């Protein structure tokens, strides 16, 4: 791990002080009690192994309902892998083993009896690269409901409209819902379409894996505004490499890093305002001030 005396690291981040000033105005009160206190997700000693390689080690944290949790940390610190435990997408990776408990409303989603299909309806996911299906905009949004047997045209129309409206995309696409392919939209629109697609399945939790990293700054801001709006009704967990983004949108921030053996672990978690101004751990401070590469 780099220390402050390594020249190249400092040279890459010439303005660590500015960075800190910029984020010094927290959006939420610097006090955990100001948050709603309904626990939506709780992880208990979650570890993820790929074969005999530990990717995530022993992470326990809670996510409050209708709040935004940001997972930050360097590449390889296991943030995305950890996020994928919440809707069991790690099931799809051959050789991946998840230990510990991930509880959604008190129910352990790792339980073998849990239906992943039902889980993923309640816990939606937005991926790093916008990935609309090569279908019309309408069919993209209607995909989830249709798979659950919703074929009533009136209800689907309504669902597509409300989902697109909530994702702040309706006005831009209302005229060619059925004619235009989801892939014909711009990157930012595609990502909002993917969010609308998730909203149409009526989830409670939305997981976002670096949702804006492939987008331009304007589209990024739109996604962030959207997240703040969605926070009123949904619990959101976002992985981001962009610390300003974490500071701008999240209520709580969890900082991950990796140990000598490359296993990712949780350094600390707390209200975003405090993490970015008065972190408890030296590692966190080094990372957010740019002294950690």
């Amino acid at each position: 791990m780099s220390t402050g005396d390594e020249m190249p690291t400092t040279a890459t981040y010439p303005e660590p002080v500015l960075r800190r000033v910029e984020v010094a105005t927290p959006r939420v009160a610097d006090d955990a009690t100001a948050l709603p206190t309904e626990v939506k997700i709780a992880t208990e000693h979650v570890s993820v192994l790929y074969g005999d390689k530990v990717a995530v080690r022993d992470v326990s944290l809670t996510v409050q309902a209708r709040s935004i949790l940001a997972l930050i940390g360097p590449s390889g610190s296991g943030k995305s892998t950890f996020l994928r435990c919440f809707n069991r997408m790690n099931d799809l990776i051959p050789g991946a083993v998840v230990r510990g408990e991930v509880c959604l409303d008190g129910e352990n989603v790792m339980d073998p009896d849990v239906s992943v299909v039902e889980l993923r309806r309640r816990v939606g996911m937005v991926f790093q690269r916008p990935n609309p299906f090569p279908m019309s905009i309408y069919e993209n949004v209607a995909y989830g409901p249709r798979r659950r047997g919703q074929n009533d045209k009136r209800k689907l129309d309504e669902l597509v409209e409300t989902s697109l409206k909530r994702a702040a995309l309706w006005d831009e696409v209302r005229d060619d819902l059925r004619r235009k392919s989801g892939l014909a939209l711009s990157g930012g629109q595609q990502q909002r379409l993917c969010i609308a697609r998730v909203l149409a399945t009526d989830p409670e939790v939305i997981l976002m894996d670096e949702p804006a990293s492939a987008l331009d700054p304007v589209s990024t801001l739109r996604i962030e505004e959207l997240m703040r709006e969605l926070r009123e009704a949904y619990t959101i967990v976002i992985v981001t490499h962009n610390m300003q983004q974490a500071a701008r949108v999240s209520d709580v921030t969890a900082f991950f890093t990796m140990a000598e053996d490359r296993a990712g672990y949780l350094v600390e978690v707390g209200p975003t305002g405090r993490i970015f101004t008065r972190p408890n751990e030296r590692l966190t401070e080094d990372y957010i001030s740019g002294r950690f590469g």
Partner: protein
Amino acid sequence: MTAPANQALARPSGPKQSLRRKGSRGSILADRAATVVLWGTGVLVLAILGSILLHFALAAWGVVSPSFILDDPSSTALGGIMPVLWNSIYMLVLTMLIAVPVGILGGIYMAEYAGENAVTSAIRFAEEAISSVPSIVVGLFGLILFVDDAHWGFTALAGALALTFFNLPLMTRLSEQALRAVPQEERSASLALGATKWQTIQHVVVPLAIPGLITGVILTAGRVFGEAAVLLFTAGVGTPPHYNFANFDLLNPASPWSPFRPATTLSVYIYKLNSEGLGAFKNQIVDGSAAILIAMVLIFNLGARFIGRLLTRRLTAA
């Protein structure tokens, strides 16, 4: 010392390279040679194809006419090839009805369910082994199994099943490849929305794989049109009788719709005429038949691509 402080960052000094030369003489030569060879290969392939088409177009000139296509064969005059042409189409449809669904389902199993283990490597080995068995051996196998042991005699069904043996490995392998070519993230997107694995395969993976699946269908169909050895021993080589298309009794061997009748195809007919034909118009009939066979393959390929595009549009609405 007056050396600039940032000397370490300066370009290594040396004679400046002229922009006129892109590289050493050897690499330029290799580049040109590759261009010439690759162009030459392309032109050669096109020339071979073109000369075959031209040869049969010229040879068939004056032979192919509406009556050549629509008449029964005649021992005394030029006659026509209608029954064997019908049999080729019939065998194609019958074989594809069996081979396409089984091949695609097999491909889905191999691409989406099987994983990598001893069973799948055994299946892959079998696919390759059967594909490289000479077709005459597959024909003999069909002869023993269907014609003799099952007492079916020479029938269209025996031919179609033997052709399926011959084609299924190819169809399965091509389907598997087409499905594997669908990006993993499309599957993830669907599964993350709470779709089941089968729904994902049905609504995302297969629709996106259609162009590749169509390629499989076309290659398989080409082998059905062209195959003679497999069918010699299974579907029969006799000159077909006059077909009465009003007879729809599928169990009656006299009906041209029945799978339980001998069915000499165009390829087998060409082989037979060429090797043992005696009639005065033998060569004209062979040339005309070959031209029709080539035309059918072309029409089928274009038709299959067209249907594939329609299907893709319908299934993905894009």
